[in-house]
């Protein structure tokens, strides 16, 4: 019947068939993107991989947990709180540990070890908080999932909508800051050549501090979304970390746009790939899903250590060059 094929009918069909795996993939990708932007930013400016990144996310996770389970109010109030707490923690880490170590002339290895130590300290702190909440307040505090506390717009969970809006806003704000403001240009100058930027009067310490504020804040923000869709606990930062590293490395660790591209690629492939493998071979294979980003990262490092940024740039150069250069390149 013709009336059955009306636009409304098709829309309704698509609407109900919207597979839950896409929601999984998108929420996961949004969280990973927020975190790998920060990871890449700190790597660009200070040249150290920030292994404490996932810790800031755990802080965000427990912000949402406390607000929903202990105070019983709307989970989205945790968003600004997570951002501020993550940023404060990052400032503490930068001023207390990273900056003094850089002043003493410590190399990237010493900084890495100290960041791992910081991760250990903060994760243990969160564990103590979780223990306290369970033993003293009597609220179950590990492996919680707060999907029921989220609002829904039809088929779409609130966290998907809010995190997508936040991601778009963050990317636009980041782009505008880096291209239109004085400070963003100073930031880019520091990335290109830090000593030269310092000679020109750019306050490198301020630039680093802002990069740490952004990385901590964005990771804390990403953490507040996690328990609204996934089962979370003190270990959920470690669960994310492989994806973050893989996303940043595949993105190229040389530009923020690369990190965005890399993290969508990695997390969609991870969720979709594990879903496809699970339908093919059985549910047991889902436990090994962190091997997918790891394998992709290894392949990229072996064949193109520059990541997506290098690949895209070489493609662009090849396409935009006049034809005679393209053919004569090998001779």
């Amino acid at each position, binding site marked *: 019947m013709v009336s059955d094929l009306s636009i409304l009918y098709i829309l309704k069909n698509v609407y109900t068939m919207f597979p839950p795996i896409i929601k999984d993939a998108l929420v996961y990708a949004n969280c990973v993107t927020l975190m790998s932007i920060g990871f890449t930013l700190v*790597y660009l400016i200070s*040249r*150290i*991989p920030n*292994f404490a990144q996932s810790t800031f996310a755990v802080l965000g996770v427990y912000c949402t947990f406390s607000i929903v389970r202990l105070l019983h109010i709307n989970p989205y109030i945790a968003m600004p709180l997570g951002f501020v707490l993550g940023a404060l923690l990052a400032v503490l880490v930068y001023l207390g*540990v990273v900056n*003094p*170590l850089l002043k*003493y002339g*410590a*190399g*990237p*290895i*010493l900084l*890495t*070890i*100290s960041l*791992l*130590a*910081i991760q*250990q*300290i903060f*994760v*243990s*702190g969160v*564990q*103590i908080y979780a*223990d*306290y909440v369970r*033993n*003293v307040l009597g609220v179950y505090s590990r492996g919680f999932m707060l999907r029921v506390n989220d609002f829904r717009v039809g088929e779409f969970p609130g966290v998907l909508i809010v995190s997508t809006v936040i991601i778009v806003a963050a990317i636009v704000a980041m782009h505008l800051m880096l291209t239109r403001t004085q400070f963003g240009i100073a930031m880019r100058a520091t990335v290109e050549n830090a000593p030269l930027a310092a000679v020109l009067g750019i306050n490198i310490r301020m630039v680093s501090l802002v990069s740490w504020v952004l990385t901590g804040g964005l990771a804390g923000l990403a953490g507040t979304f996690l328990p609204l869709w996934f089962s979370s606990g003190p270990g959920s930062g*470690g669960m994310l*970390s*492989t994806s973050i*590293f*893989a996303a940043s*490395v595949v993105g190229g660790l040389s530009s923020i746009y690369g990190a965005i591209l890399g993290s969508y690629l990695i997390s969609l492939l991870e969720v979709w790939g594990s879903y496809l493998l699970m339908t093919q071979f059985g549910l*047991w294979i889902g*436990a*090994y899903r*962190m*091997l997918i*980003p*790891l394998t992709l*990262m*290894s*392949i990229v*490092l*072996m064949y193109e*250590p520059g990541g997506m940024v290098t690949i895209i740039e070489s493609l662009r150069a090849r396409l935009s060059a006049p034809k005679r250069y393209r053919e004569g390149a090998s001779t």
Partner: protein
Amino acid sequence: MTYDLIFQWIVDLLMFFLLYLIVTMNLNFMYGYTGIPHFGISLSVAGGGYVVGALTGRILRWLYNVYPQLDFMYENSKITDEINVHLARDPFMGISMFLFIIVVSLALNAGLGYIVSRPAIRLSGSYLIIVLIGMAEAIRVIGLNYYPLVGGTFWIHVPDVFGWMGDFRTEGFLIICALFTLGIFLLLQAMSTSPLGRMIRAVRENPVSAECVGKDVVGIRTKVVVLCSALTSIAGVLYGFYIHAVLSTSYTRAAWTFYPWLMFMVGGIGNNMGATLGTFIFISFRRLIIFYKHNIEVYVPFQVQWLEQILIGVMLLLIIMFRPQGLLPERPTKMRGLDYEKFHDELENKDVKVPSKRAAKKTILERLLRR
């Protein structure tokens, strides 16, 4: 406190000291001498443990033909008990099984070390760290989820290959572990004070100039990682035989990567003496905490292990900030065939660091333990 408790405490202390010393010395050889930041060392320990857990019981069951109709994983403790009865009368089988497992573990973990270091061994430190941390996590995840390997989140029993020692078993196994550790110590010490040791230090200090004088930097680094991964796995094997079980949840990053790093940062980078000292200090400290844990647990509303981890983390941060070279710093390398008496004063006048004059005439023991 009874005599038995003190004895058990001392045996435990020595045992963990020896096990961690193997890991720390290998880590020191990789980072301190060659400059490879191996942040996934737990994967080699786990590799050794998996070899013990997966192979020992199965092979012995096949050899003795114990309960062939039962499922190996589900009836694990029953089968292991029966194997232990056989092993208690069969010293030859016990020893040959032990040596066989060590050889298999060396071979498998050398291969594993090659595979995990392959993607990033030619890149700079940060990439290598990222890949190795990921790889260690992957090995742990496989052990946790692949039930037939070492029992997933449960554990698998390891037959007691030294059951024939009877009452002397605890001390006997301690002596065997000490011999293995001494062997590894002597091997690494000999390697680090030979021309090879100078070459790997050159690779650490300046890879570009090492390559300029004709050294294959990537090849040397790969060989060092392969060798040290194989040697580290012995710690995993001995650990499995010591506790008579393999537990995949015990190979965490904190326990087998972070603590060994802390130990040799405390002791001093780039010399085996420092690694030994650091390991001893750290292990004594931890054993004391574990011993008094239950006394503290009464007063706080959380598990004491988190407090312990915070303490350890803060300790590491303080060491990195205020004494990055460790308790026993590395000494400049000494070259054979150079007349130090002659150059000593001349170099010292120019403010160049030189080994002390005494270095020329050392006893055999001093030569063995030199830094």
